[in-house]
């Protein structure tokens, strides 16, 4: 604990030092920063100079120094400098003045030439610059267009590829689905077949079972009770009916398939079929059959 307290004192001291240093630095920086704020008046003067000699700031140096359009003035001939001293002096002064003037004029011309050259150069340069820029811009535009075209093409290609991929995927899925369906159908068929076999086995089992005999005897009793036998239904009369029943035993349809009896017999058997509705239910639902053949054959 005590060690950590000393550590803390050290770190506090260091922290104070660091802060003090930062504050000091800030103050110095602020001082330094304040100096340039006084210079703008000087900058305004310099700006005048810049106007007289147009600079080409940040412009790349011309590949070749501009060639002066006007050749330098020819040197003065000596024949003209032979007067007396005064006159000579005067002449020299005059000559000097004239030279001065000529020089100044030449300088001025030269300066003007220089300016013009510089301006032309500047203009040319600017034009070149513009041209370069325009060219570059055009190039860039062309590049952009080409890129856009390429992008479009790429996109189209990508789309086509994606579509093709999607189609392939879809085809694959469809094929899979079809396979699955076929398999399901096959499975269903097998299941159906098994169920049918089972049901047939069951049916075969019940068909020969007492349950069926019981069911038939129930139906027989029911129809027998319902058949009011007319006097004309004598031995030798035979009538066949097809009865359709629905689950629950309700008789929905009766067809007289054949009957050698008279109209009264025919009426009686048909009526009996409807009177027997609803038919009794089998003890085993597997025995239910919507179609029943009934034969009326009075034994006298």
């Amino acid at each position: 604990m005590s060690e950590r307290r000393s550590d803390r004192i050290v770190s506090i001291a260091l922290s104070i030092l660091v802060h003090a240093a930062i504050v000091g630095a800030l103050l110095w920086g602020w001082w330094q920063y304040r100096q340039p704020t006084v210079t703008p008046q000087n900058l305004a003067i310099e700006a005048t100079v810049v106007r007289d000699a147009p600079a080409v700031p940040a412009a790349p140096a011309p590949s070749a120094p501009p060639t002066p359009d006007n050749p330098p003035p020819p040197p003065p001939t000596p024949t003209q400098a032979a007067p007396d001293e005064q006159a000579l002096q005067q002449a020299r002064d005059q000559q000097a003045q004239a030279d001065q003037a000529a020089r100044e004029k030449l300088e001025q011309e030269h300066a003007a030439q220089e300016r013009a050259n510089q301006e032309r150069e500047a203009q040319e340069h600017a034009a070149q610059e513009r041209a370069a820029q325009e060219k570059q811009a055009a190039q860039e535009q062309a590049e952009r267009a080409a890129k856009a075209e390429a992008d479009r093409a790429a996109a189209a290609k990508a789309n086509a590829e994606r579509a093709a991929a999607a189609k392939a995927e879809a085809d694959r899925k469809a094929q899979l689905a079809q396979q699955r369906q076929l398999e399901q159908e096959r499975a269903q068929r097998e299941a159906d077949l098994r169920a049918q076999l089972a049901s047939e086995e069951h049916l075969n089992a019940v068909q020969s079972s007492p349950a069926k005999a019981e069911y038939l005897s129930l139906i027989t009793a029911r129809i027998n009770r319902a058949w009011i036998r007319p006097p004309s239904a004598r031995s030798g009369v035979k009538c066949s009916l097809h009865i359709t029943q629905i689950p629950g035993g309700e008789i929905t349809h009766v067809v007289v398939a054949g009957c050698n009896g008279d109209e009264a017999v025919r009426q009686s058997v048909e009526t009996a079929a409807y009177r027997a509705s609803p038919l009794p239910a089998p003890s085993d639902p597997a025995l239910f059959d919507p179609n029943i053949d009934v034969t009326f054959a009075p034994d006298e």
Partner: protein
Amino acid sequence: MNNPTNARIAAPLPARASPVRGGKPLVLVLVVATALVGLLAPPARADLQVLITKGVTDPIPIAIVPFARAVPADGGFDVAAVVQHDLESSGRFRPMQRRDMLTTPSSASDVQAADWKAAGNDYVVVGRVTAVSATELDVDCDLINIQTGTRVASQKFIANAASLRNAAHLVSDFVYSKVLGVRGAFATRIAYVAVEGKAPTRRFQLIVADADGENPKVILESLQPIMSPAWSPDEQWLAYVSFENRLSGVYVQKVHTGERQLVSARIGVNGAPAYSPDGMHLALTLSGTNGNLDVWLLDLATQGLTRLTDDPAVDTEPAWSPDGKSIYFTSDRAGGPQIYKLDIAQPKRIERITFGSAYNARPRVSPDGKKLAFVTREGGNYRIAIQDLASGTVSVLSHGALDESPSFAPNGAEIIYAGRDGDVGTLQTVSVDGLVTQRLKSDQGEVREPVWGPFPR
């Protein structure tokens, strides 16, 4: 021949209604349609095969809806009530009570099948009486099978106010035949002998009535006994024995007109006439001078007599087989009365038919020739029995103490006979299966020897 003086002849003019071929049965179309359907689509053979061999003889539930009336031309006659009574009395039908009917449609198209089916009916009969002229009435009826939902048949009868009862019986016949496949006998007539009062003021009457006992008409009245009426096969004549001249004589009388002839008034007994099926002969019992009763054959056209039996025993009560080739008769040649059969072509060939009881008499052959009805003694009672001629099986049908004179209805479905209920004589019918008995008429006197007439021609 001689018209006796002490018997009064009455000649009623019975009103007969006539059936008309009309209202073509829908059922024909249905049958054809059913057959076609059967041909086009034969149903597969079903797993469930049922064989019905018995059935029941329950009465068939039927509703006879009151007919639409033709007031006042119909005289207020209730056709449906007569039909209902006819069908109910046959024992083959169980008519719905009128008070249970919710509606009274008079044509097939107005019948709400579900309602009548819910009431338990198999069939519904609807009809209407309409006046087509001042005197002529049409009676139309429709028979509907409620269970199958089909109109079985329709029929029109032409009648008048006086023959509406007969028309009603024809409606009954129509329904009966369509439903049962057997011709109805409601529009036939019966004849019987009624005895009123006691000696010496007894009066004998020969009466003709509708088969249901209604509409009785006296066609002969006498203070002397009248016996053994017998119908001619054409239903126009009655032969009978009358003692109006104190001696027995056999007469034939035309029912409609009262015209009559004495056809046998020989010495001794002249009795038990029976028309041959062709109507040309009478079989009858004659005693001759020696008093021995034998069966003879009388040619009505020539009055020629042919002896059929020649036996010292009593041979009497002849009855024709429907084919006219044989005669059944009662004889006591074996001791007690039994029934025998002779071949008219070879009268010596005689066959005994009844055994069992010590008393079997008064034979009558069924219209199909297959059964014999007669009186048998069972215990101390005389009852109506029926014997199957092929098998010899005998069934006793009646339950009275002194039942006599059985006579088959022309459709063979019923037998009419006379019974006694204390002092009251009654006419009764019994179905040939013995299941249905019906009392037609009761009188303070006696009613004897009912005979059921043939179908009108």
